[in-house]
């Protein structure tokens, strides 16, 4: 019971009901986002052999490069977890540090992805080249767009925490943000496996 009292000082009464509802609502959003990605995965799966005489995944993808991207995103998912642990401890400075690390890793990931895209486009393998490349850019690009959105959100949330500290309102937003970021890592597992790993296999 003593812990209960301690918590209610952190959570203002008005927010007691708001936090679980917000978490559930956001979870439902994430699941519908999964359905969006599923349609893009289905499109990719149908079109991935339609290279129209152009290069396929085996010629285009650099595996060590993709592994680096994957490990960076995975690590950023872990540092988000560390940030949330700090948030539950009410340790504002550590929250900012770990979300800062997460944001840097996210920026590194996005930079690598855009480098890959630029490389492909410069060599004439843009989304206009073939059905395979259209599907590839749409799927991977949509994921990248989510990462970019997450980064903007992270900056805003970081600024709020810096100004207001860990309150029930900022803690709730951090929870949603961390769910979002972990979710993007989940989607990437399947992009890594289906697009990149399976794309480099002989048919």
């Amino acid at each position: 019971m003593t812990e209960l009292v301690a918590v209610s000082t952190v959570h203002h009464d008005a927010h007691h009901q708001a936090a679980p509802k917000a978490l559930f609502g956001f979870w439902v959003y994430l699941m519908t986002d999964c359905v969006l990605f599923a349609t893009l995965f289905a499109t990719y799966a149908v079109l991935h052999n339609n290279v129209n005489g152009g290069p396929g995944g085996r010629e285009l993808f650099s595996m060590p490069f993709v592994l680096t991207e994957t490990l960076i995103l995975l690590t950023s998912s872990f540092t988000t977890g560390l940030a949330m642990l700090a948030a539950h401890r009410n340790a504002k400075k550590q929250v900012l540090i770990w979300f800062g690390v997460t944001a840097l890793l996210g920026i590194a990931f996005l930079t690598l992805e855009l480098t890959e895209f630029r490389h492909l486009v410069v060599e004439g393998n843009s989304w206009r080249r073939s059905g395979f490349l259209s599907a590839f850019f749409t799927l991977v690009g949509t994921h990248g767009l989510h990462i970019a959105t997450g980064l903007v959100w992270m900056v805003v949330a970081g600024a709020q925490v810096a100004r207001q500290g860990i309150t029930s309102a900022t803690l709730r937003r951090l929870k949603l943000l961390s769910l979002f970021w972990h979710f993007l890592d989940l989607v990437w597992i399947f992009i890594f496996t289906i697009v990149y790993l399976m794309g480099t296999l002989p048919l």
Partner: protein
Amino acid sequence: MSHLVRVVDTQHEVGQGTLLSYTTGFILSISLTLAAYFLVVNHGLAGGALILTILGLAVVQLTVQLLFFLHLGRESKPRWNFLVFGMMVLIVVIVAGGSLWIMKNLNYRTMTPAETNTYLRDHEGL
């Protein structure tokens, strides 16, 4: 109230417990990623078995991250989050699996005579 209790739990567990779960999830995820990567790069298995194995590894990693990062299993009853998750999986299976099924069937039915001969020779042993 259930949420309050959960917050108490996480505050109580902080330190070893939850840090341990994040670290476990992280190490397992990295191992699974590297396992799939090196299987593919070194051609550890042949054709169909390799594809099934790396898809299996991806699903295991999905489960690991759902449990250790998204805490899907630590929900109190009723498990609405899990229910919505199940519905999502069902829709994903229908959309992705259904698309592949339909397109495979369509390809099969719209082959040229030459393709039909090759197909029958390669896949049906005729």
